[in-house]
C-alpha cells in the first residue's frame, strides 16, 4: 500500500496566514476497516477542540486552557504556544462523512473508516 496516498501530511498548510501553533505528535495506524489517528493534545478540552474536513484535508486544532489564575507569571516554560494544529490529506478511499472522534485525558482518537467499496474483498478468478 502506498503510504503517501493514504494519509499525507500537509506540510505548513497555509501556515503563514494562521496563528502560530504547535505540531502535536501523532500515531497513525491502518487496518482493514480504516485509519486510526491518535494525537497528544494535553490541556485541550472537548470544547477547545476543532476537527475540520475541507475537501480532502483533515485539520485538527486545539486550544490549550490550563485554567491558571490571571496574576500568574511564568518562570519556566517548555510549552510556549497555547494552540495545536496539524493537517492531513485524506485519500479518496476514506469515508470523511463517518469520522469518529473521542477525547480522553488529552489524547484525541480519530477513526476514519474506509468506504464500503474500498474495503478489501476477494476477487473470484473465473476458470477460463
Amino acid at each position, binding site marked *: 500500500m502506498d503510504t503517501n496516498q493514504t*494519509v499525507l501530511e500537509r506540510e505548513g498548510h497555509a501556515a503563514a496566514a494562521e496563528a502560530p501553533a504547535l505540531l502535536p505528535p501523532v500515531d*497513525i495506524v491502518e487496518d482493514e476497516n480504516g485509519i486510526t489517528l491518535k494525537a497528544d493534545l494535553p490541556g485541550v478540552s472537548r470544547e477547545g477542540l476543532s476537527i475540520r474536513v475541507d475537501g480532502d484535508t483533515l485539520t485538527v486544532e486545539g486550544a490549550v*486552557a*490550563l485554567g*491558571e489564575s490571571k496574576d500568574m507569571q*511564568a518562570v519556566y516554560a517548555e510549552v510556549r504556544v497555547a494552540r495545536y494544529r496539524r493537517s492531513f490529506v485524506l485519500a479518496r478511499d476514506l469515508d470523511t462523512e463517518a469520522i469518529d472522534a473521542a477525547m480522553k485525558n488529552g*489524547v484525541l482518537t480519530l477513526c476514519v473508516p474506509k468506504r464500503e467499496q474500498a474495503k478489501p474483498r476477494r476477487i473470484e478468478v473465473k476458470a477460463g
Partner: protein
Amino acid sequence: MFPSLTRFPGELFPDFEALQRQVEQLLGASSWPSSIRAAGRGAFPAINMGVTADAVEIYAFAPGLDPGRIDVSLDKGLLVISGERADELPQESDKVSIYADERFSGAFRRAITLPEDADPGRVEASYRNGVLRIVVPKRESAKPRRVEVKDAAA
C-alpha cells in the same frame, strides 16, 4: 517574566524554536548554558512553571495517563514526576500498517527544582485534560505583605 503561562507575544517563539532546532541539528546539543536538570527537547512530559502571590504551580503536559498511576514525590525542594505510558500501537502485520509512531511510550521521570520560597509540606496535585497540575503554596513568610507605617510623631 512572561505575561502568561502559555500566551507569548507574537510569532517570535515558534520561529525562534524552529531556528533553534535547526541549529541543534547542525551542532549537536545546545551550547547554551541551561538548568542542570532541564531535559533535552521533546522530553516527556513537557513542563511549565509559574508563580502567583500565594503559590508555585507546575503544569506537566502528560496526556493519556491513568491519574492513579502518576507518581509525584518531593524531596528537599526537588519535585519528581514519574510514571509510565503504555505503548498502544498494535503489532504491524500484513493487515495492519503503522504510518506514524511519534507519541511517547515507556517510562518517564522528570525532576524540577522548586523555588526556595515554596512550602513542600502542602502539595496538591490534580489531573485534567491530560495536564498534571501541582500546586505548592509559598511559605507564609514569603508571601507579599503590607507593612503598616506607624506615625512616629504621635
